């Protein structure tokens, strides 16, 4: 059973779930064709058919490959966890951006990203200095040059 839980199987399976949810939502609106005229769910249905056929091919061939080959434990790359940290940091930044504003959240985000990208926590004062510089440059670029206002805690 474990050999069927490889990424080759799970990725097309996940895509298939997305496509089914997508076409199900599209069908809530209307029938694809009414009196010979294509409706708003017509094109999503075509996308579903094309995508699902290709995805099923991938799923079937992944199942076949899994059946023919023995389950091999995938090598765990410790840096994979770093990719997860990047996603968590970005999600936290987006969540807090509107609440706390640029000035508080952006420097923390930049500093966190520097720590994540580095192999180990080191040269912290240098990182703090670069964090301040990056945040300042990006703030000036967006607010002064491109005239975009960011949310701030005092605004």
């Amino acid at each position, binding site marked *: 059973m474990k050999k069927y839980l490889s990424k080759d199987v799970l990725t097309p399976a996940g895509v298939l779930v997305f496509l089914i949810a997508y076409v199900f939502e599209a069908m809530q609106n209307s029938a694809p064709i009414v009196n010979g005229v294509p409706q*708003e769910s017509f094109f999503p249905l075509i996308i579903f058919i094309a*995508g699902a056929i*290709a995805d099923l091919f*991938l799923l079937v061939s992944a199942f076949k490959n899994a059946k023919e080959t023995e389950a091999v434990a995938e090598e765990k790359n410790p840096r994979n966890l770093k990719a997860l940290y990047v*996603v968590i940091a970005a999600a936290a*930044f*987006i969540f807090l951006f509107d609440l706390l504003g640029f000035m508080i959240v952006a420097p923390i985000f*930049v500093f966190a990203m520097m720590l994540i990208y580095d192999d180990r926590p080191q040269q912290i004062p240098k990182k703090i200095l670069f964090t301040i510089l990056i945040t300042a440059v990006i703030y000036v670029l967006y607010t002064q040059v491109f005239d975009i206002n960011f949310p701030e805690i005092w605004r």
Partner: protein
Amino acid sequence: MDAQMVLNAIMQVCEPLSLLYLFIGFFVGVIFGAMPGLTSTLAIALLLPMTYSMPLSRALVMCMGVYMAGIYSGCITAITINIPGTPGAVMTSIEGHAMMKRGEGAKAIGHATIASSIGGAVGALLLIFISPLAVKLALMVRTPGKFSLVFFALIVMVIISKNKYKAVVALAFGLACATIGVDKLKTVSRLTFGFTQLVEGIDTTTLIVGAFAISEIISQALVSNAEYEKLGEAANKLKFKRKDFFPSLKELKEVGILTYIKSTIIGFFIGVLPGAGASMASFVSYATAQSSSKTPEKFGTGYPAGIAAPECANNAVCGGALVPMLTLGIPGDGTTAVLLGVFLVYGIVPGPNLLTTRMAELAPMYIALFVSAAILMPLSLYLFGPYYLKIVRINRLVLYSAISLAAILGVYAATASVFQMGIALAVGVAMYFLKKEGYPPVPFILGVILGPLCEQYLRTTLTLGQGNVSVFFTEPDSLFFLVLTVVFAVWLPRLNKKSETAAVKA
């Protein structure tokens, strides 16, 4: 494009602010092209939200600087540390790094710069002269033909992908994202999954930044910083003087003017083919230069003609790839696909009518492409050449942290919506996993950009014909593109195979 329009375009590009944007684009392109992992596509994706506050012509001028310099600068690391900055510089690394090992690295960069400049400039001129002819043909295309044309573009993008099934899935994902929000033909909302924020749909910038920038900043977390610093140390040991960059007249004669001309023409016309791109152009031109050379045995040993041919061709691709994009609305490669996103930001619908209705705004782009190719030579050979090697030494932590912040803020700048920032992150995560599993990102973005047009033309044709699909086969323009789709389906994989064989042989 008449003489008056060309003159106006030159005047616009020569305005101090336009020149400043061109130079900014140029330097951003050089940095993104030279650093392994970064591409000019990503650079334009990051600059996309910043272009909101600029007039269209200036935004396009900056993008042209990024495009030309991004393609060129892939040769810098290809020659110096044998790591091509862009896929189009793979062939350059074969000859260039061999020259580097002989102590002629600066000269190899000199040859690459001269060839890139010639290829890019002539490619831009060919674009200026060929576009009006292509426009005349494009205007003959009617609605069923327009659908077949978009269909052709989508199919070609799938055909050239390594795994066609995965390309179809990526394309379906992009098309699906493009259908979310108000249906423009019936003005009813659809596919909102209960989120009122999705009624207006997902912004093109959100999808482009998510697919190219956010997925890349996640991927970069997998790269060891210590390993990357080793590359910087290797580059640190190299020191070039300005005079070392100039090849002698004898060496240029040995390359031969015919090599420059042939490679430029090959590069331009491969660029015109949707989906072919810079790597194919450099493979084909390298193979052609080798097969027509009097001294083919010198190829692979650090021979300047083996640098000039691919570099000339991959920069000529820039002009060629803009032909189908501007006249038919079909991007020639990933960068032009993102460039179409810039058009959409300004409310410009790509397609056959584009050049007739908005030519005055687009003309500076042609001139900027030419200028950015022409300035390659003086800027690289006389001014910044010795400093190019230091690009690899840019602190990676600083660069990627800044890119991360700029990417996410870019979505806010474009949409003023935290919800769209979240969507960009979700798309980025999905694209990161899909890319890791071999699903190509370009069909996705093509689906996002061409999806609405594809749906509009298909539904309009079927509505007018009461659901009759035979019109796609009876209208001559539509039939032409359907036949072309079949021809490409047979021919492009063969051309791909040939260029891959050339790469392996080399």
